[in-house]
């Protein structure tokens, strides 16, 4: 794997190639155009580009796929963010009377960032991640995805690896896109369980009866807890580590556990002791609270709340790691490895090395337009799989849209 420094250095050379030959424009446009059911839905969408040397352009907007393509190839943005759908074309926002230019719709988005787990990770700090802590993201996706589907009834949830230390979720259902700011923050609050800052020791408080949604989250967390927390993170492995956990148990059993823990063989045994002794106290949910504090997804509520908040686009290249922000297939979530995600340099290399056989192919069909040939280039690289996942997501969305349209035309015929 190329080091982070190398990846930043190749950006100026390889990004133009990526935007010219590999970026999946057709799928991208299909996504944000939402079937073209509403006119100007794509045209009124805000994009923002961060160019080389941190030049920041907000309120970009495009009339169609061709224009988007042209601009991206011309400006070669280091980072692309997606904003809201506005009442007017964002690139003309200055010509609209102030106050009339308003954000109307946006996907309901969630941003989970590994830095927010620093108090419960023993392996890495800040922007660093490793296989040991990545499980936290797996758990986060499992818990949130279940709630979004089963509790809120959202069908179209696109999970994306951010390219560095976190994941994003784009909920694309009609209802989700139309949610008000208040509703968005309410949903985010509903999904937030871990609360409190640096000065709060116990950040999860459960009361009887436990809400069904939390109950289900606990079941999901339990599936990972032993292997993740007790083995890999070894949260009860040393005195220093278990003191942090014991700070969360009721005082009456704390001292006893402190002595018992010293003689216990490993984290696993100590966890069993803790669970046993908690049962004798009034705080019967202490074990669950600890599990949630260590594993429950920690959302950046502000990102979800704001209708006009920008979020990094899928298929954007992370400027530091060079990794492509790719969709995650939940069917194989447990084996998703952020370190084997295609990077800008890896896919450009693949493009070069696979040139030979394909070139013959090309000469045989010279009549084919350049754009069409280009649209298949990504298939020669490891970008093919992420694009396939994206495609699948789009097909499902188009399918359900067709269902709705049929229903509508049916009801029309009835009259």
């Amino acid at each position: 794997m190329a080091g982070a420094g190398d990846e930043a250095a190749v950006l100026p050379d390889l990004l133009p190639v990526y935007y010219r030959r590999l970026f999946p424009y057709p799928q991208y446009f299909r996504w944000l155009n939402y079937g073209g059911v509403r006119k100007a839905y794509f045209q009124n969408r805000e994009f923002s580009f961060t160019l080389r040397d941190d030049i920041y352009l907000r309120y970009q907007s495009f009339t169609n796929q061709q224009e988007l393509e042209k601009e991206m190839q011309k400006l070669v943005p280091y980072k692309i963010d997606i904003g809201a759908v506005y009442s007017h074309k964002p690139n003309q926002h200055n010509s609209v009377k102030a106050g009339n230019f308003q954000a109307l719709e946006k996907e309901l988005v969630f941003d989970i960032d590994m830095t927010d787990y620093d108090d419960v990770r023993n392996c890495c700090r800040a922007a660093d991640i490793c296989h040991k802590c990545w499980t936290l993201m797996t758990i986060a996706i499992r818990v949130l995805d279940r709630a979004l589907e089963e509790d809120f009834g959202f069908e179209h949830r696109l999970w994306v690896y951010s390219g560095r230390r976190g994941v994003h979720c784009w909920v694309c259902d009609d209802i989700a896109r139309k949610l008000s700011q208040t509703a968005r923050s309410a949903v985010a609050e509903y999904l937030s369980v871990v609360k409190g800052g640096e000065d709060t020791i116990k950040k999860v408080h459960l009361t009887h009866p436990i809400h069904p949604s939390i109950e289900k989250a606990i079941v999901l967390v339990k599936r990972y807890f032993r292997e993740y927390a007790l083995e890999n993170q070894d949260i009860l492995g040393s005195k220093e580590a278990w003191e942090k956990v014991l700070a969360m148990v009721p005082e009456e059993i704390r001292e006893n556990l402190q002595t018992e823990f010293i003689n216990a063989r490993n984290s696993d045994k100590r966890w069993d002791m803790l669970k046993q002794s908690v049962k004798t106290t009034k705080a019967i949910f202490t074990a669950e609270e600890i599990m949630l504090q260590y594993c429950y997804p920690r959302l950046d509520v502000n990102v979800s709340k704001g209708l006009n908040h920008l979020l990094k686009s899928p298929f954007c290249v992370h400027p530091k790691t060079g990794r492509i922000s790719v969709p995650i297939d939940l069917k194989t979530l447990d084996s998703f490895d952020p370190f084997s995600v295609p990077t800008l340099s890896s896919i450009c290399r693949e493009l070069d090395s696979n040139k030979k056989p394909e070139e013959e192919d090309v000469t045989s069909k010279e009549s084919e337009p350049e754009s069409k040939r280009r649209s298949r280039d990504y298939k020669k690289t490891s970008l093919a799989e992420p694009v396939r996942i994206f495609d699948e997501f789009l097909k499902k969305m188009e399918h359900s849209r067709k269902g709705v349209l049929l229903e509508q035309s049916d009801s029309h015929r009835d009259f």
Partner: protein
Amino acid sequence: IVPYHVAEMSQSASQNILYFYCILYFSCFPVLKSIENIGVSFVKTSEQYSKKLEAELRKQRFHFRPVRSPGVFEMRRKDHLSHFILRLAYCQTEDLRRWFIQQELDLFRFRFNELPLDKQQQFLKHNDLDYNITAEEKEAVHKNVIDGSRLSTIKMEFLLIYKIHFTDAIDLIRNRKVYLNRGYAYVPHPEIVIIVLNEFRQILSKALALTKRSLPVIESDERLQPLLNHLSHAYVGQDYSMQKNVGKISLEQIDGLAVKSFPLCMRQLHKALRDNHHLRHGGRMQYGLFLKGIGVTLEQALQFWRSEFIKGKVDAEKFDKLYSYNIRHSFGKEGKRTDYTPYSCMKIILSNLPSQGDYHGCPFRHSDPELLKQKLQSYKIPSAGITQILDLVKGMHYQLACQKYFELTHNVEEVGFSHSHPNQYFLESQRLLNVGRDVKKEPSPPEGSQRSQNSQPARPASVSAPKSADRLASEELEMIFSDG
């Protein structure tokens, strides 16, 4: 488009009718005012709250229950008209609208809860909120509904459950107080009031916005304009701006008063000013207007701030250039010549949060509990009292916490007023300290009986009628300052 009620008002030509509206207003405004007062002192869902409110409404002859009697139509007409007059008066600014909506919501909640079940259902049906679920569906979800809504002791067979789209149950979702399945919220009957309230809030706030838009039409009627202005001014009872006590306080007294009679926020600002010889803008506004409210004149204010600031990094010339304009401005002597009123607790708590280097805000709201504790300890508040205050802070009852602080620093059992303004705190404190000097404290009624009874010990007039409160307060002040 002019809403119906507005049209009706502008068409009513005779002065008599205007007079009638005026009367109506004064019969309804105190109702909202008492709702606010009781709402600050009690938890809104508690039995105590309902009892207190019921007693208060009875006292004011406000009919909150549907009645069957010949006069019912006239009564409802009166209720409706007064509501619309209040709308006119309270649509003018954001603050007024927020206050009005909050009180109307509380009144609505109370009235809705007082209705018998069949009437409640009728209401829900009438407003398209009646989505009962089938017996089978109920069977399937009932455990989840109970757990999700944190209801512990309700018999399921009597429980009505409404199935509504989650976007209609936002308030319940925010607190994770409802069971959600596939996009639908299953709301048990007692909770449906929250949904209804939300709906009511939206309607009311839209209506107020509309009313505001049609205000210019009404303002062109010179008979109404002064009336409306007057109405909304009565909103906090008094705004503690122009008092008759102006000039009856000397700058030497301030240090002493700060310790004895200032609420904690002002005491903190005063101390910060004396320590640092400087306050940032937010602090100068909050403290400066408070001082103005207790009777400091413009000349005194200029002298007060100048003498303090020049002890620090600011020399007299710089002070005159940078700060005196602002002080004159806040006394209405510069710029658009608005005579600014002292900040109320609500404003201090909600707006302009203090950041690094600021000392303004509400210490109960904006201080770290640990720091608050230390501060209270240093002010020699007994530790039991500190615990009580911290509990109130934890429950987000910042004004009650302040009230407790008042009780503890003045050695009284119950303050006898509902605290909503720093200047009110000051007046009450002075009143108490000066009265205590010559009159022995009245024996307080025995514990227990005091709380459970419907009839309350007579409260000071300052909470009920704005008119008399104004007069009373200034008379008190006369007494206080002529005394000192």
